[in-house]
């Protein structure tokens, strides 16, 4: 087993600046390599100008740099057209745009939306609120004891007449993947469209929106080594063209008169105002960095760590892992609890040993309620983690029950 080779950790100044820290919370946000940090520094320090406006050289260069990222994203997710890539502030905004400017426009009273119980609040609350406001039916696909959505559940819940299925590719809370191909296929059979939440999957596995036939795909930059405040809304052109403008303002117009306006074509029509230019540039640099390493290398490294951590955790009889431990159904995220110990205490005791993990409900309260687990401790990996991180975790996990007075 490949163990402690730190081929890429040296690219991350964060770890030089925090030499004692074990960072196991990349599902919340990732650290950034020098290549990404330098890209934003160069833009801000030497090339900063607004885009799509000036006739001077700097502005044109900034525009070119910005537009080049659209092309990189297109290639990264296997889209066919650049105008199918809309820059947003992140997954949350991307979903809200689809909900209000697509679903809000096309759905009528009584229409049905299907989600899964695994959804993050950001792919649940917007749909729920639309359903309340517009008297839509909102249904959920549920999971088995391992956290997996079974084929029967897909067949039953995604029935004739379902208009939209909004589904994560991987649960942020328990790290279980959804059967995305089967869900997309079934939704298209019944004439619906699929909104795929790729926030947890796009940073960790190769995506091809065309071969997977995704209608919409959303994801965030900061979970794939880019800045916070930038993300992507991918949509098939025919669908994006039916969306109402989400925000009005500069850059999204064609002609503005005192009483009427005509709007720009895609993608500008859905990108009002000065965008997060440095964020988009950081996203481009992050994609370059991922491509430089290779998505397969990243995926294999993370899954090696996940398997290693699952093995080590399973040796502790007081650790209860939530969901399947079969890594063919998992991403690089493990959720667990220590017997008799609340996850907040676990995280606090680990923090004291400079180990950063997530605790709580992971913005997935309906899931936690369904699983009857009030909270969990969660670890997650990225390219910069190594087996020593896991070993440190295990060493200090062994102290948690003792601190809480349970002996071992």
């Amino acid at each position, binding site marked *: 087993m490949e163990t402690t080779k730190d081929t890429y950790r040296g690219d991350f100044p964060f770890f030089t600046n925090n030499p004692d820290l074990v960072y196991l919370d990349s599902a919340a946000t990732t650290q950034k390599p020098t290549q990404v940090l330098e890209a934003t520094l160069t833009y801000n320090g030497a090339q900063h100008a607004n885009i799509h406006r000036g006739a001077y050289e700097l502005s044109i260069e900034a525009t070119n740099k910005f537009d080049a990222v659209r092309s990189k994203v297109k290639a990264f997710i296997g889209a066919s057209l650049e105008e199918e890539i809309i820059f947003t502030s992140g997954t949350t905004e991307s979903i809200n745009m689809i909900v209000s400017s697509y679903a809000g426009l096309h759905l009528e009273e009584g229409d049905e939306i299907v989600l899964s119980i695994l959804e993050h609040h950001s792919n649940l609350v917007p749909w729920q609120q639309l359903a309340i406001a517009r008297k839509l039916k909102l249904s959920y696909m549920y999971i088995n004891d391992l956290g997996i959505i079974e084929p029967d559940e897909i067949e039953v819940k995604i029935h004739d007449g379902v208009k939209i299925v909004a589904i994560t590719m991987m649960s942020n809370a328990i790290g279980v993947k959804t059967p995305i191909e089967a869900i997309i296929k079934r939704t298209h059979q019944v004439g619906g469209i699929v909104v795929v939440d790729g926030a947890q999957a796009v940073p960790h596995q190769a995506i091809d929106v065309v071969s997977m036939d995704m209608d919409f795909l959303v994801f965030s930059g900061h979970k794939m080594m880019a800045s916070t405040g930038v993300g992507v809304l991918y949509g098939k052109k025919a669908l994006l063209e039916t969306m109402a403008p989400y925000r009005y303002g500069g850059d999204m117009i064609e002609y503005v008169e005192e009483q009427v306006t005509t709007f720009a074509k895609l993608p500008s029509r859905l990108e009002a105002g000065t965008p997060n230019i440095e964020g988009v540039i950081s996203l481009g640099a992050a994609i370059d960095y991922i491509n430089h390493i290779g998505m397969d290398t990243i995926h294999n490294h993370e899954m090696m760590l996940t398997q290693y951590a699952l093995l080590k955790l399973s040796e502790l009889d007081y650790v209860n892992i939530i969901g399947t431990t079969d890594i063919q159904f998992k991403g690089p995220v493990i959720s667990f609890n220590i017997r008799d110990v*609340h*996850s*907040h*205490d676990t995280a*606090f005791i680990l923090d*004291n040993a400079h180990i950063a993990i997530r*605790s709580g*409900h992971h913005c997935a309260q309906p899931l936690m309620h369904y699983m009857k687990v*009030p909270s969990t401790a969660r670890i997650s990996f990225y390219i910069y983690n190594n087996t020593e991180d896991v070993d440190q975790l295990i060493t200090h996990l062994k102290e948690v029950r003792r*601190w809480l007075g349970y002996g071992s």
Partner: protein
Amino acid sequence: MDLSSVYTEIIMEHNQAKHNKHQLTATTHKERGHNPSCGDDITLALTVEDNIIIDAAYDGMGCAISQASTSMMIDLVKGKTVEEAREKVSTFIRLIKGEVNPDDALEALEDVVVLSNIKNMPARVKCAVLAWHTLDEALNNPSE
């Protein structure tokens, strides 16, 4: 940080103690308190007669600090008047904010002052004060 200043013996005893963790039948006041970000979720029930808290109990889930703080608070306010309980809530909040030192709070809060170390741990303040805010709310909102 020294974890033993947080996970003290008395806090661990109260975390594991169940004597205050049960349903109350004849309740005059009931309030749910909840820290959405970390999942502490308690329901506090009181029976107040002639202005005296004659019984109190809680139910719910949470970290050791929130559970111990709730249990210790119930021990402290049982048998006290509503005004005395409110005064103790106020003293406890000031203790956790660092506005009153543990020695000066000892008479009002008794062994609850062991929680004063929490004031140096921003991540745990919410856990410690949850029950006390919930008690304050409960006293403001009788069930009848």
